[in-house]
């Protein structure tokens, strides 16, 4: 199992994601200006500020040469995880429904948050139990998830709302407390909190984030929980 982690010039959590992925499999960085996935079985679009994000988070990154390959890869059923800025990029690329708006408090906010797993059957959460709580840090300025009511209803029916902020934890004002969503097919997943920063007891005090990477490995390798 090999993860490919995209590296934009403004990626910040790229090496963190790479090292988290290496805890469950092989992993390699993929340069934004290239097109070759180097044999990766699953892709991580990491956090940071891809191209500075002075326009709108992820608005330019979706046009990167590597993203064109990743869009084809996803449309062919390949597994793609977007974390924070990566989530924004995947929304901009229309691989995921909805959009991410400025936080309700209009500030960059960094906080350890509790998440609830609403769908433990999918490709990215199969190592979790239903209704399990995950403790994972979130840190962003543009993390308020929004989708129109019809889209939300459809997503709810299809089990696309995968992670929700636990009561009292939704600091960014996301609609329906949504923290992470998948596409209809279930092979693309984005979340604002950072699972790659919850993989080591020594650093951060939680290893719950590892379950996301572990789930991806199980999915790719055909292991069923």
């Amino acid at each position: 199992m090999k993860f490919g982690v995209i590296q934009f010039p403004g990626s910040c959590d790229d090496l963190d994601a790479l090292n988290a992925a290496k805890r469950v499999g092989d992993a390699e960085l993929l340069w934004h200006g290239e097109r070759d996935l180097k044999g990766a079985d699953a892709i991580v679009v990491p956090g940071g500020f891809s191209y500075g994000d002075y326009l709108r988070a992820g608005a330019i990154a979706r046009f990167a040469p590597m993203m064109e390959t990743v869009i084809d890869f996803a449309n062919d059923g390949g597994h793609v995880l977007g974390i924070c800025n990566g989530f924004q990029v995947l929304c901009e690329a229309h691989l995921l429904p909805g959009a991410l708006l400025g936080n309700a408090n209009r500030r960059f906010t960094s906080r350890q948050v509790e998440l609830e797993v609403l769908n433990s059957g999918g490709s990215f959460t199969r190592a979790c139990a239903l209704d399990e709580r995950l403790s994972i840090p979130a840190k962003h300025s543009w993390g308020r998830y929004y989708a129109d009511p019809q889209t939300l209803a459809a997503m709810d029916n299809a089990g696309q709302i995968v992670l929700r902020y636990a009561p009292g934890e939704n600091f960014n004002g996301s609609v329906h407390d949504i923290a992470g969503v998948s596409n209809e097919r279930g092979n693309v997943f984005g979340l604002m909190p950072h699972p790659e920063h919850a993989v080591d007891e020594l650093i951060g005090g939680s290893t719950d984030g590892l379950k996301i990477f572990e789930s991806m490995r199980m999915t790719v390798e055909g292991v069923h929980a």
Partner: protein
Amino acid sequence: MPDSAVLPTAEDALALGLTPEEYDLVCEKQEGPPNLLELAMYSLLWSEHCAYKHSKKLLRTLPTEGSHVVMGPGENAGAVDVGNGLVCAFKVESHNHPSAVEPFQGAATGVGGILRDIFAIGARPIAVLDSLRFGEISDAHPSSRSRYLLDGAVRGIGHYGNSIGVPTIGGEVYFEGPYEQNCLINAMALGLGERERLVRSAAAGSGNTLVLFGARTGRDGIGGASVLASAELGDADTDEDKRPTVQVGDPFEEKKLLECSLELLERGLIVALQDLGAAGLTSSAAEMASKGEVGIDLDVAKIPLREPGMQPFEVMVSESQERMLCVVEPANVEAVKALCEKWEVNSAAIGTVTMTGRMRVFDGEELVGDMPVRALVDDCPLYDLKPEKPTAPIYAPPVATLAADTPPREALLALLGSPNIASRRPLFEQYDAIVQSRTVRRPEQADAAVLALEDESGLAVSIDCNGRRVAADPYTGTVEAVLECAANLACVGAEPLGTTNNLNFGNPEKGHIAWQLTESVRGLGEACRALEAPIVGGNVSLYNEGATSGPIYPTPVIGMVGRLPDARKAGRLGFVRAGDAIALVGPFVPSLAASELAKLHGEALPDGLEEIDIEAIRNAQIAVREAVRAGGLASAHDIAEGGAAVALAECCLAGGLGASVELAGIAAGMMANLFGEGPGGFVVSGGEEELRALGELAPVRVIGTVGGAALSIALGEGSLSATLEELTDAHTSLRELFP
């Protein structure tokens, strides 16, 4: 002499900040009057900011050598050995005046500047800390200006650090009247590099090429070093006019510049590297030439510009951010340019290293400036300070916000809610503290921030200075600031490796400020010598005075880096287990003089602080450090603002556990027992036997037990009790400032 239509006059020199005597000296060095470009370059390099002309003689008295020091003062940043062939580079720098004029960009570019200093020596930035000072913000006498500056500065620091992917892992902030017009924004950065790969800034190799890379050069920040950093601030109107002298930061550009610089070094493509900071290309090129004892020819026509029509002098003095200058062997120039292209960074070969010993500036074919490097960099006159101990108080007493007869329980809650002590969570939540996956201890988890290294050892870092206590006694207050940093390191189990400092003072040409500076540097030197924590670099920021608020409190901000053998054993400040014993450790002699409580009562500063026994305090620090390393303590916290009672409350809040203790007979009087301040005290918890074992090196007094949902303190003749909820309510008072 190069052509110039009209030569500037002595009056022009005065307007640029040179004294008449300095102008005469420039004429002598130039063998005739300088032209405008030359005068502009002299005025910057001979400014206080670049030449340290009032502080250099004092700084020479500081200890700069030690067994861990790899790179000392004089380079872009200092560095200490952290084992396995690695060094930790670190430095603190100020961006006070720009931030007082425009807080967001001032603070943001302060962070950008200190990060460039770190990667300029070949280390990857791994952490930022900040040290901030503003006027009063409490509801009792709110300053809307200070609230605006605080909000802008915190946003600016977050904007830059968060965007570039370097965690902001700690810091400190104080609110005091003397900072009302002249806030302080000091930023410290740490980096990690391979000892063998460190690069110096000395230009070398006649015929080698100078390559400027990074952002284009524009008209922003012209004159920042001389206009902003080397003069007192005026009133609000004229400071408005100074706004164009503040630079605008672009963290994305710097992120690319950082990665590009480190890759250039990794591939061995460059000979020397220097960042462009204050005084832009003028200072970078001249200092590289001076350190290498060579000359430099530069062509301003080759520099990528943001706008057409810039004069050569504007190009030379521009402080546009996110630029670096490197020296490259001619054979490697194409490879350097190709790598810059990969990172989408501009680059241009703009000059060559010569053996002329002169700094020559060309505009195409035309020679537009020609100066001896030595005259520019080394011949600025140094001034002796004329210290004079003031005979009358310099600072007005603070406005009283708490009645003198307030009972102990209410005083405790008032202290916990006072802006200097209240929880900093609303501030540090705006910073990314965890990117790069090294952060073992974040703010409010321990007294010092802790980062894990790959071999499982840890780096600890602390930044501190209580300006009010330095104002009361510049020598002792500065010793206390150094001891406080070392105490913070001891609480996580770390021993000091090296120190950096930012000396923020008023106008050194005034006798009483000169006295503060001289006494403070004496204390800094003595304390660093005693702790074997040499100074590896730092910064001086003078002329910090407001037109009506007068000089700031003398604020020698201390940053200290230490190491602990096992990051997994890093100490915590919060109580951990109900039933643990609690002890006071150390030669702690609390007094209400210059304390936070005295401030709330509106008391004037005392003339001098209690003498302190540095050696006895050092022993207590060693006792705590070794016990933390051995895993013998559940928690450790040093006693600072608000005294033992506040320290106990902080341990309760951080651990979510109450405590029952007895605080009596430590000092004269109940209030001094509770809230008296002084160096050398720790609150620790753990098994009673382990606590008593500390007694071999330091005084230990077991005072109570962890447990329950309230902090209860018996006082001999009475008692006080506050629930965790009441303590939390008081402690979260800053929340409302950041809705």
